[in-house]
């Protein structure tokens, strides 16, 4: 190893190190480059894109009515079996019995947000919500019933 090469190596190495230090030094002094978001503080300003897939929800109107007919397409199409439809028999005004959903059970813990249920729903009864704070202490709390208690099917939805 010649002396020239030895010194050259040492110098080149030191120069490359100084370059890296210049870069970090730049960020140390330029606080405007900081990209951190103060998450729980900025909850109100957070805007999630409208396509964000957070969880499956079933919209209800003001009369506590939903659009689910209980056709079970979502249950069939789900890759993970995270939707279960439980039926009951509604008594219609004319005395006939009509099949309607009792509970639409949704297992958020099994859901992969693939959107297949929403796409395949013939009556647009379910949609994806823009929520993302799903953490709970008990896994059972992730098992959700989508239709509200005593809710009914909307008129005109077949």
């Amino acid at each position, binding site marked *: 190893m010649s002396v020239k090469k030895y010194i050259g190596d040492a110098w*080149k*190495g*030191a120069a*490359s*190190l100084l*370059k*890296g230090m*210049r*870069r*970090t030094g730049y960020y140390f002094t330029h606080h405007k480059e900081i*990209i951190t978001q103060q998450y729980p503080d900025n909850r109100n300003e957070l805007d*999630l*894109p409208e*396509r*964000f*897939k957070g969880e499956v929800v079933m919209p209800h109107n003001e009369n506590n009515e939903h659009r689910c007919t209980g056709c079970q397409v979502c249950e069939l*199409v*789900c*890759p993970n079996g995270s939707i279960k439809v439980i039926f009951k028999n509604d008594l219609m005004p004319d005395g006939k019995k009509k099949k309607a959903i009792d509970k639409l059970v949704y297992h958020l813990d099994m859901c*992969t*947000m*693939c*959107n*297949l249920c929403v*796409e395949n729903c013939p009556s647009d009864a379910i949609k*994806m919500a823009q929520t993302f704070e799903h953490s709970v202490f008990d896994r059972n709390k992730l098992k959700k019933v989508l239709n509200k208690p005593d809710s009914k099917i909307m008129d005109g939805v077949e």
Partner: protein
Amino acid sequence: MYRETEIIKDFSTDGNGDMIINVGPQHPATHGVLHLVITLNGETIKKIEPHLGYIHRSIEKMCESLTFRQFIYVTSRMDYLSAHINNHACVLCVEQGMEVEIPPRAQVIRVLMDELTRIASHELWWGAMAMDLGAFTPFFHAFREREAINDIMEETCGARLTMNYNVPGGVVNDLHPNFQKRVKEFLELYKRKVHEYDELLTENVIFINRMKGVGVLSAADAISYGCSGPVARGSGVSCDVRKIYPYEIYDQLAFDEVLETDGDSLARYKVRVKEMNQSIKIIEQLIDNIPEGDFVAKTKNVLKLPKGEYYQRVETARGELGVYIISEGSTMPYRIKFRSPGFSNLSVLDKIARGGKIADLIAMMGTLDLVIPDIDR
């Protein structure tokens, strides 16, 4: 999980200074639950034995009971860093049997998303590898750019990591109106920041010394061990599926297959860094030329693949992913096999790590870019 009796029989520490040490499943450098049983002499590695299966979900078995529309979404969880490309392989394989014309717009969208995913994956790899080597700062800098990609993904696909954007025949929904603007912003950001990567790592003398000549993999070994992706290309094996067996519109695009001939960790590192630039090149070509038209082809609601065998290979961020579907003519695959790049790339670890130091192992694992769910499937 481990074979206690066997190992103690084989390598009892009878005064030769050998030490059996477990790296993983809970180790900061394995990035997942990879378990390596390492025989050490001093600091020198004598043997590495991977033990897998900590997160094996048997996706192949799961897919046998899912329809052709459903099984695609399970595969996002294999190599979660290139989830979109996994899905892409699956839909391509299904489309082979469907004989359906994919609209050009859908093809371009898919390729754009593929390349964005590839950049995001390499970005994460870059940061995580630097962190393994002890430099923490690059990790955060890499995440800054990766976050921009994730935001684009979130806006268009509705999710940040496992996008589930592909469906047989095209993509789920059209591009977001903001897409082009956002991607251009990202390109600008990337170009402004990319020289920092060189300053922080690529030119750093410590980094070069850590990587150079470490874990040398010869071209013949790379082929024999079935390596693919940047691992094989670092050894000078031309294996880019996008070039050799082009799918979608890759044959119409101008980009180079990055090849390095040294076969050491530094070569693998350089391949990935240059690959990011190639992906940028592809995105630049496409972003202003997205054709108008449908984003999804009309397909039957219930998909049935004709009886036969279908194999589709794509280039993920880690290498060649193969999807092998055997259909019996029903709505579900009879048997499905995923040839994951990580599995073959992992098998080479023992070969290249022998004789190296334990610190070299970190560099090698970093440049092999192991994603454990991809290996375990």
